[in-house]
């Protein structure tokens, strides 16, 4: 067995021991509850959040695009970095207020309540589940590649082991204190990636040196239009690349489980701030490593192996193996939460609500976990027989999601006329257009990014569908409230704890009744 494989096994075993130790500690304590969240301090929480956000895309997809297309790849990074800010300042405020008024805990529940339509929930859930599984398939492929490098096994065998480990971990891991394991992994990955970047820059003479050497290989790498100026003047493609990350995530069906602290805590707010800062730092690093590989690894066979290959180039074998083990473990950690969310949406939002209203809790868990197993089987088949690139799969999943949800979300806070028929048309037209555009490679003929094509069709869908439906009667008053926001100074508004909304609303009624 390769030494690297032994390092990986020891690493996984170490994580298991840490997880079990902290789980046992948590369940032995009289006062602490499982799943209740822990106060770890903002910096630790932030690193944990960052670690679970580091997916196969960041370690394989992003660098691969940069390696193949040069500076053009940064259009995607700009969308990623700027998207959160645009969202927070433009849409976010209104959507948060609307979401509070509707009492919605997830984006899909939000759309259902806003437009008064269970059909929206079904269509939205189906699209989300497909997206989530698509995203997880990309993680599967990444895990296969990481394991292939670590163990020296053939890709298909490494993939089977990788997916097997992920699925088993997801359904039998119980309550492992993942915050601690994520924290340790976060440190390894941050140190590893930053380490590679530093060594790379020293080797290449900084950013200017890197650019000079890239120019010697092929100056078109430095152009914003891609290698060989493949996308020159194609604003439809560039706009799609920027938009996809800036708005695609809005359709993520992240379900918020409400937490109430029993102690005074300021951890969460600080953590979000720290995590946002981390994110800004890390959005660009994987792409920079891709640029370095153009110079340092000109004969690299698989572009998605940029980071693992650079790690072995700069670090002693064992350290590189530890970094790659951390990457593999992070992929597991990202995949398990996505798989569980997709499974739970399927069992609760679709099966329980629309198929069997009296299903027992055990039946629901079984359905959820069976769908995870099925996803594993389909994922392996796809990844072995028709393996798309990690980048392609993530972009496709994000694109379908953004195209299905962006127009309905914008309309939900800005339009008085929007209604369920318009929203359903917008969701279906947007999503389906992206699928057709991508699968038939229409971008090459039309010079229009699939995301932009989907966006245009989604807007048209909304405009065509709206005349056939009726808006909810209560919406005019609510939209005015949403537009006006809270009657408090801005400095207070930005510190408001949104989760106190049900209490605030009931206390308000209590005071009025007095």
């Amino acid at each position, binding site marked *: 067995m390769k030494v690297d494989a032994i390092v990986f096994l020891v690493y996984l075993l170490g994580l298991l021991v840490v997880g*079990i130790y902290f*789980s046992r500690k*948590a*369940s032995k304590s009289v*006062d*602490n*509850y*499982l*799943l*209740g*969240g822990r*106060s770890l301090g903002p910096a630790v929480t932030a690193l944990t959040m960052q670690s679970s956000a580091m997916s196969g895309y960041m370690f394989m997809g992003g660098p691969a695009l940069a390696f193949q297309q040069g500076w053009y790849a940064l259009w995607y990074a700009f969308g990623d970095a700027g998207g959160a800010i645009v969202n927070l300042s433009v849409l976010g405020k209104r959507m948060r207020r609307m979401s509070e008024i509707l*009492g919605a805990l997830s984006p899909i529940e939000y759309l259902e309540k806003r437009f008064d339509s269970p059909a929206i929930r079904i269509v939205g859930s189906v699209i989300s589940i497909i997206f989530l599984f698509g995203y997880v398939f990309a993680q599967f492929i990444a895990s296969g590649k990481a394991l292939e490098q670590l163990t020296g096994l053939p890709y298909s065998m490494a993939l089977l082991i990788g997916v097997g480990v992920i699925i088993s*971990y*997801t359904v*039998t891991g*119980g*309550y492992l204190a993942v915050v601690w394991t994520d924290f340790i992994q976060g440190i390894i990955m941050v140190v590893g990636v930053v380490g590679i970047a530093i060594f790379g820059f020293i080797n290449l003479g900084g950013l200017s040196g890197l650019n000079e050497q890239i120019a010697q290989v092929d100056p078109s790498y430095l152009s914003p239009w891609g290698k060989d100026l493949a996308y020159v003047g194609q604003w439809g493609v560039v706009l799609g690349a920027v938009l996809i990350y800036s708005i695609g995530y809005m359709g993520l069906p992240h*379900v918020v*489980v*409400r*937490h*109430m*602290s*029993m*102690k*005074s*805590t*300021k951890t969460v707010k600080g953590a979000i701030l720290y995590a946002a800062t981390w994110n800004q730092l890390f959005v660009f690093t994987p792409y920079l490593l891709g640029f370095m590989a153009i110079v340092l690894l000109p004969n690299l066979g698989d572009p998605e192996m940029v980071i693992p290959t650079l790690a072995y180039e700069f670090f002693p074998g064992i350290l590189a193996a530890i970094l790659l083990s951390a990457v593999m473990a992070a992929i597991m950690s990202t995949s*398990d939460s996505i798989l*569980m*969310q997709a499974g*739970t949406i399927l069992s609760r939002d679709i099966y329980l609500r629309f198929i069997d209203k009296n299903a027992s*809790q*055990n039946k*629901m*868990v*079984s359905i*959820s*976990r069976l769908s995870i197993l099925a996803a594993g089987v389909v994922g392996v088949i796809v990844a072995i027989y028709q393996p798309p690139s990690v980048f392609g799969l993530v972009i496709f999943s994000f694109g379908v999601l953004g195209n299905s949800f962006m127009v309905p979300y914008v309309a939900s806070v800005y339009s008085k006329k929007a209604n369920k028929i318009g929203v359903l048309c917008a969701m279906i037209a947007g999503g389906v257009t992206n699928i057709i555009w991508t699968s038939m490679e229409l971008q090459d003929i039309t010079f229009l990014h699939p995301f932009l094509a989907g966006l245009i069709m989604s807007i048209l869908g909304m405009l065509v569908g709206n005349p056939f439906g009726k808006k909810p009667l209560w919406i005019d008053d609510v939209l005015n409230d949403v537009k006006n926001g*809270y*009657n*408090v*100074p801005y*400095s*207070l508004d930005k*510190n*408001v*704890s*949104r989760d*106190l*909304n*049900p*209490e*605030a*609303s*009931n*206390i308000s009624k*209590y*005071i009025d009744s007095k």
Partner: protein
Amino acid sequence: MAKKIWTNEIQFSKEEVNRLLQQMEKKSRFTIDRLIYYPYYFLEYGLKEKTLLHGKVGKIGCTIDSISGVGSLIDVSPNLYETEMEGNERIDVHLTQKDAALEGEKFVCKSISYKMKILRMPEVELQKNLLFYRPFWLVRGDRKKKKFLLVFDAVTGKFHPL
């Protein structure tokens, strides 16, 4: 009429609330009006399942808002004490203890399904079901004749406009 109730210890005094808000918003004046006690059910469940790795799983705690029925997971067992209190500071309960237990079980199972890596739902056994009142400060704010109201959680220091 005075009645015995369970409640949380107040962690933020009037002065602290004023100081904290003033730090955030220097141009406003704040008047800390009074305390309002908000009703919740505190529910504690034991989770039983013999698994290969973990043995007995442990406990899970939640609160159910006794007005709107909204559930929340909680981190630690709340520090509650019994005291006598006048009715005019308390909001009336809408949900019965039995209904709260049902809502709580549904909420806890859903949370487990989202967050625990399990093949079967563990046996969930209700161990505690207690009505308690959480203190909130009612705060009046005033900035250049623009008046506003806030509700300030006296246990955690979180706040929300009314």
